[in-house]
């Protein structure tokens, strides 16, 4: 199953991104030593992959700790990093995991940790088990490993690891290989986790294990939580290692001396790490970041607000000194609707809301044109995106028609439409949660509010002081509408978690409470689809069903914006945050 997905995915993506991808010229001379300073809005919480949960954390950690395989940041080809290769698995024919997908992963003979120790199967086993330590909860890796049945080190070959994954899991290849390995000898020198089986850690209650009172387990957990973020404690396999971290000021990565990857001549972005130092300069305020760019304190600045980006571009002489880059972002913005809410349970009401949302105004007014409209959870450039679906236009007539069709009329002439639901007259009043920190989210909600008022729907803004509380309310179903964003996987997309009704029923995902039997059937089918062409077709059908049901109002995919010194060459990357720091080079060279 994975083979067909991979072949299709890679070939299609190569076609789509080949036009955008601009690689370093082979004739370029790389200077012996140079530093790149990148502005980041905040610092990572941790540099250990299992303890890192923020986007800036991922941005930094990926250059220190490598996964076995990863999507190329420029063309999204799935490439092997620590492994000699990755096939698409085979079906196990015997033993306890008969029928499961089996992967045999051979770690490269050259691959070592930054302290010189070899990377072995023991490190793979440690990382998988460590994901079940409570302290790893923030990363969500344990849930990621839910479909992992077993992992074993080969008895003869210390660098060979055998992995078994549930037979029907469509992201098996990524599950087996796409997570950052951590060195066991550094983070579990006593090999505490060797005493626990994977099944015990996945379900301790059934195996009679009380991890909350298990002293050795808890001690390891706490020791991992207390790891100081100092260079000697950060040992990874990637091209960079931590050189210095001044909290809330800057974080410096330096190229690993005699890095094993330099011995491997591979023509992909991962094995070309040019800057000898990457400095992440923490600057929360965007205006200060722009000033720092002007005074030369930073070389590359990621810019969140399009108006700041454009204002800088229009400053006299700015284009002489700086280049203005942008990239597609794998984040889509949408208005989440609680599909279990008595009013929004009706797809016609949800459609009326979609007709009331002026997405073009969002793009032109709020995002200065630096965003692309989307009608589904796929990137518009992706082969899975259904181009037959036309964005729902702003139409108050259609919105009113849908509302009336759903039985909503202003029977009491108070300006708000109403309807009898479960024997009670209900006025159409819909609170929308917005983050008090996000002016964009608030403005999007205001656009909807103004338009919805024209058809007698009263949208009330409910500002929430912090994002964590907003998330908590959404996860517990205590919301009606909310302005949100999401990042789908850059690889093959499994829609089960976010869109299948069983996820809502099991409380494992689908927080908007979307339940649609047709959509469930498509998801169930595409997860077992054998034919690649059919898979594309089913992704299109899935998207068409979402379009018909309008469980959320899909808005836009914002462009990632960055400004950099003109004498540097910065290629836009497809993965977040839109740049790939190790590929940055001085232009004149």
């Amino acid at each position, binding site marked *: 199953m994975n083979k067909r997905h991979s072949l299709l995915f890679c070939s299609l993506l190569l076609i789509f991104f080949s036009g955008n991808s601009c690689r370093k010229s082979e004739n370029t001379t790389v200077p012996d030593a140079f530093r790149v*300073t990148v502005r980041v809005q905040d610092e990572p*919480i941790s540099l250990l992959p299992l303890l890192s949960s923020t986007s800036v954390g991922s941005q930094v950690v990926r250059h220190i700790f490598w996964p076995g395989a990863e999507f190329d940041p420029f063309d999204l080809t799935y490439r092997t990093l620590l492994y000699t290769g990755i096939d698409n698995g085979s079906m196990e024919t015997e033993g306890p995991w008969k029928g499961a997908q089996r992967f045999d992963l051979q770690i490269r003979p050259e691959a070592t940790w930054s302290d010189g120790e070899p990377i072995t199967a023991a490190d793979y086993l440690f990382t998988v088990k460590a994901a*079940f330590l*409570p302290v790893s*909860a*923030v*990363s*969500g890796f*344990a*849930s990621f490993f*839910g*479909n992992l049945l077993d992992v074993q080190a080969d008895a003869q070959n210390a660098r060979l690891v055998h992995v078994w994954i549930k037979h029907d899991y469509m992201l098996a290849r990524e599950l087996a290989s796409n997570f950052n390995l951590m060195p066991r000898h550094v983070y579990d020198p006593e090999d505490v986790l060797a005493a626990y089986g994977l099944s015990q850690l996945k379900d*301790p209650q059934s195996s009679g294990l009380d*991890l*909350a009172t298990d002293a050795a387990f*808890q001690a390891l957990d706490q020791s991992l939580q207390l790891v100081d973020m100092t260079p000697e404690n950060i040992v990874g396999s990637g091209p960079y290692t931590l050189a*210095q971290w*001044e909290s*809330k*000021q*800057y974080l*410096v990565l330096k190229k690993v001396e005699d890095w094993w990857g330099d011995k491997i001549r591979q023509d992909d972005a991962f094995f070309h790490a040019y800057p000898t130092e990457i*400095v992440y*300069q*923490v*600057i*929360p*305020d965007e*205006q*200060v970041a722009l*000033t*720092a760019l*002007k*005074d030369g*304190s930073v070389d590359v600045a990621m810019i969140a607000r399009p108006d700041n980006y454009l204002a800088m571009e229009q*400053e006299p002489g700015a284009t002489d000194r700086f280049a203005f880059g942008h990239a597609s972002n794998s984040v889509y913005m949408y208005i989440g609707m609680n599909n*279990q809410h008595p009013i929004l349970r009706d797809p016609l009401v949800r459609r009326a809301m979609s007709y009331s949302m002026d997405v073009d105004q969002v793009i032109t007014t709020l995002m200065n044109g630096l965003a692309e409209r989307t009608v589904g959870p796929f990137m518009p450039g992706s082969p899975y995106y259904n181009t037959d679906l036309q964005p729902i236009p702003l139409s108050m007539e259609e919105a009113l028609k849908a509302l009336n069709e759903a039985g909503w009329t202003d029977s009491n002439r108070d300006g708000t439409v109403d309807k009898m639901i*479960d*024997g009670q007259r209900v006025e159409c009043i819909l609170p929308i949660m917005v983050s008090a*920190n996000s002016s964009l989210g608030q403005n999007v909600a205001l656009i909807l509010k103004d338009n919805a008022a024209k058809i007698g729907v009263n949208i009330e803004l409910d500002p929430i*002081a*912090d994002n*964590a509380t907003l*998330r*908590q309310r*959404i996860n*517990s*179903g*205590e919301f009606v509408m909310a302005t949100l964003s*999401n990042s789908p*996987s850059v690889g093959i997309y499994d829609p089960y*978690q*976010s869109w299948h009704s069983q996820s809502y*029923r*099991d*409380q*494992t*995902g689908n*927080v908007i409470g979307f*339940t649609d039997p047709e959509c469930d059937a498509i998801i169930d089918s595409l997860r077992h689809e054998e034919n690649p062409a059919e898979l594309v077709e089913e992704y299109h059908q899935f998207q068409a069903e979402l379009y018909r049901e309008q469980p959320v109002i899909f808005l836009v995919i914002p462009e990632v914006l960055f400004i950099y010194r003109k004498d540097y060459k910065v290629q836009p990357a497809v993965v977040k945050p839109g740049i790939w720091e190790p590929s940055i080079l001085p232009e004149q060279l």
Partner: protein
Amino acid sequence: MGRFIVIRLAGMLVTLLALALALFTLYQWLPGDPIENLAGGSRRDQEAAFDPKLYAQRYAIFAGRYAMDRPYFYFSLVPGGMPGAFLRLSNHRQRSVFKSWYRQLGDADLVRSWVEELERLSASDQDMRVVNLARSASLQTSLGASIRQFRQLPEDLLQASEIKPLLDRLEVRLQSRQWLGLSLRWHGADNQFHQWVRGLWTGDFGRSMHDGRPVSAKIKEALAWTTSINGLAMLLAFLIAVPLGVYLAAFAKPGVARWVQFLLYAAYAIPVFWMATLLVVLFTSDTYGMNWLPSVTVSYGYEQGSAFQRIFRHLGQLLIPVLTLILTSLAYLTRQMEKSLHQQLEAPYLATARVWGMSRRRRIWSYAVPNALFPIITLLGSLFPLAIAGSVTLEFICNIPGMGRLLLDSILTKDWPVLFYTTLLIGGLTLIGIFLADLLYALLDPRVRQSGFA
């Protein structure tokens, strides 16, 4: 004097404890749950599958680690007969809901039955309306409202859910509910408040809930920045304001005085954030051809080089924030000094000195100025808290990782240990500042010494 110090110190201790209690109480009312994020609850809507069982285990472990599974205070005043286990539930929201249910029913077994029934229905294959109702009822304190909502379900759904007998029992119980009385439960030191305030005398403030770093280390780093900026700004502002005030009051020509005052008030009228932005935008880059001041960012390589180079870089980094604070506070201090000196110059004792033939210079510098400084000293007490708390906007604009930013970050990330001890530290140092100002006042004024109050 001894009595004065004792009264003051005792008052400070009481105030500090009251502040700790107020902070702790306010925190309980804050929305959101920091443990939920630590336990991975915020990943429910992410693309990888979320495991509710694993989440529940982790929630309990983290709540235990941060003492959140203990009673709130040394004692609890609860409805009579309430099980102690309800006061030790790790989830605070669940704790308050369970307490409310018990208050309404007065029957712990019935509360447990209700909880079990809702859990069963929430995870069942029943119609979604039943499942949704069970989930929302588990968060709702009003049992009457939940029962009414279940009763509104179509009869077939209600029958299939098998909850009807329990609803009947709940209704009967609610109708026959009686005053349960109040009972006092003593928890001793095994409570959340004690765990937090204990850090005040053990010096162990624990670890941040956000990044796991020691709270004391985070505060120390931020405090170093804020005190150096605000301390330096205060010192320089006083050093400039005092002679300038003297000049304006005693030596300046009226025309010059008016111009100086106009300029001072103009600087005073500009908000701190605007002043800082102007200085940063105008003077740290070539955009306006005035790249005269160093960058506001603390760049890599900052701590390298000789001690002299490091001090020089450090002062460069502080230049804009210090300048901003001086410019925005100079008018106030100068005016205070000027006004105070004016009053002294018009005092009868100086007229007498003049009659005796004392020179003007001596009258001003030996008598009027020392006495005029008296109210300036009291200003120290009010400025000291500012020096510690920092200015959030200034720290953002000048990219300084000081106390203001630490406080704001801890609020936004619900980093309770950092927030608690940072606020207490600011409160404590404010009290010390006021105490020192009062002490100086008392040393200078015998009337204060005798009364014990400034």
